[in-house]
């Protein structure tokens, strides 16, 4: 579904080239749970953002359903992110002046999915948070609202970059369970430095210095 061919992402750091990703070949299959494991600075996030079209690779190509993301315009890439992908980030980013429900509805700027969103939040056990503002919720609660936002509308791929890193272990576990159990038919790509969080993954790759480590777990 997603195909990376010899993808490199190079940053210029004080005139020096830094390979955040180096010559990566990788595919994401429909419905799979792919774990990306690696120490800090190994290029996990970079890989995730390249895969999801948030970054354009310096070299190589990323294809979504056989269409190269790098050749699309910003507008078209944004459209794909909005309709086909879901995102959970390390920090539980919610818009401060919107309620949990309204934040979840951000995933659908053009349609009225209020009823769906309410139902979904109840399904996810977030009915008590529904009408609260972010400042009235704990970090774990906020991150679960973010998961709901990512999952609403059953996206084809959900990308999660260290979704548990800012949380204590118990909340982190709850967030992961929520993601895994409610993704439906969608693929799930999770980046983390904590192997415990990848329990139940179909496939795990390890990143080291921007490259995929030879032996996969």
């Amino acid at each position, binding site marked *: 579904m997603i195909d990376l061919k010899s993808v490199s992402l190079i940053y210029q750091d004080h005139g020096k080239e830094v390979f955040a990703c180096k010559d990566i070949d990788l595919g994401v299959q429909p419905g799979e749970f792919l774990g990306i494991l690696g120490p800090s600075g190994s290029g996990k996030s970079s890989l995730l953002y390249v895969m999801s079209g*948030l970054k354009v690779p310096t070299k190589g190509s990323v294809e979504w359903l056989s269409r190269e993301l790098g050749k699309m315009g910003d507008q078209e890439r944004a459209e794909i992110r909005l309709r086909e992908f879901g995102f959970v980030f390390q920090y539980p*980013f919610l818009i401060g002046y919107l309620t949990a429900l309204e934040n979840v509805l*951000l995933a659908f700027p053009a349609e009225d999915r209020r009823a769906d969103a309410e139902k979904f939040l109840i399904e996810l056990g977030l009915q008590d948070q529904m009408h609260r503002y972010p400042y009235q919720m704990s970090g774990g609660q906020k991150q679960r609202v973010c998961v709901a936002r990512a999952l609403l509308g059953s996206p084809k791929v959900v990308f999660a970059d260290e979704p548990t890193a800012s949380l204590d272990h118990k909340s982190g576990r709850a967030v992961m369970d929520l993601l895994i159990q409610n993704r439906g038919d969608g693929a799930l790509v999770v980046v983390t430095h904590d192997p415990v969080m990848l329990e139940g993954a179909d496939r795990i790759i390890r990143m080291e210095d921007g490259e995929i480590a030879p032996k996969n777990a």
Partner: protein
Amino acid sequence: MGGANKVKNKLGATVYLRRNLGKTMPLIGVIILAVMLIAGIVSLINSIPLSIKTIYSYSRNYVAVTPRGNALLTPLLRKSIEQGSPVEIDRLMVIRGTDIEVKSIVGNWPFVVLGLEQSDMDYYLKRMKAKVLDGRKPAVGEPEVMISEKLARNLNLKLGSVIQKPTDSDNYSPQEVKVVGIAESEFWFAFGSVEYQRENHFPPIDALLVFAKNPTDQKRLDDWTTATLKGENARVFTYKELEIQADTMFNILYQILNVVIGTLVVVITLMMGMLMNIFLSQRVQEFGLLQALGYTKRSLIMRVFWETTVFVIGGWVLGVLVAWGLLNVVKVTLMDPRSFALDTLDKWAYLYSLPVPIAIFAVSILTVFAKFKNFDPVGVVERRLV
């Protein structure tokens, strides 16, 4: 309304504004104050030439001619007007005049008490579209006047009040001249008996008031008289001349006003620009997040565009309403009691305040464009920015 509207409401232009009142109210307050200040100053300044035009608007109804250098010229002037007039003349009055002073917000202005023949008084009232409210017309040779209600209010005069007296050099007459009649009219006027003035006032100069038969011809008669008597030993008084004087008299004042308002707009816009910049920077996280989720730059810029539009138009409309309200209070409590003119719907006053919202709008849109130009949402969600 359908579902689509409901969703629009969710992130409609007013959501941010409504839910962040702590930030938006002070900004709207500044716009309101600026608009109010500018509209207020401009209409008060405009009220000065407006007052002058109002006070002397009676001259719209006739052209007045006085001889110059030689008091004996009047009959000749009369003859040349009667013979050459391009429009039918309804009446030509031979009159006298003495000075009084009326009040305005910028001090006293000279005004004339006409001396009329008894036979001309009713005609004069008719052409001033006046209706006698109280009292009677001045009697032959008596120290009496009839005045319009607006003049009465301005000078605080009632029936029996003294309008001119021997001890008042600005409103002088050798006898005490009393108000014996008050008439309702849109015009300001005062007239007494021509016999009294001939007897008591100096210099002994007869002037002419010339009324066109058809009021719509008056302007043509005015222009013709001005052109014909140009260079003659005569002085011609027309409304047009007065209008030109009133409009040019304050040229320098208006130039100063423009500089003051220009400075005000620049200062307020800079201040608002800085505040808007701060508030938009506080929303970088919001915009980065939305862009990462798949919102286009365009849609985010449009959001700020609509928010700003609602905000500046709202502020301006409120400012105009507050200005209008305050001007009405000023008009009723301070201006009307003395018949000072003030136009609370002065379109120039409100137009002059338009640069405030426009400049603020421009600054915020430019700020947003500058911010979005090289904006990387990954920087936001990775917390490298913010």
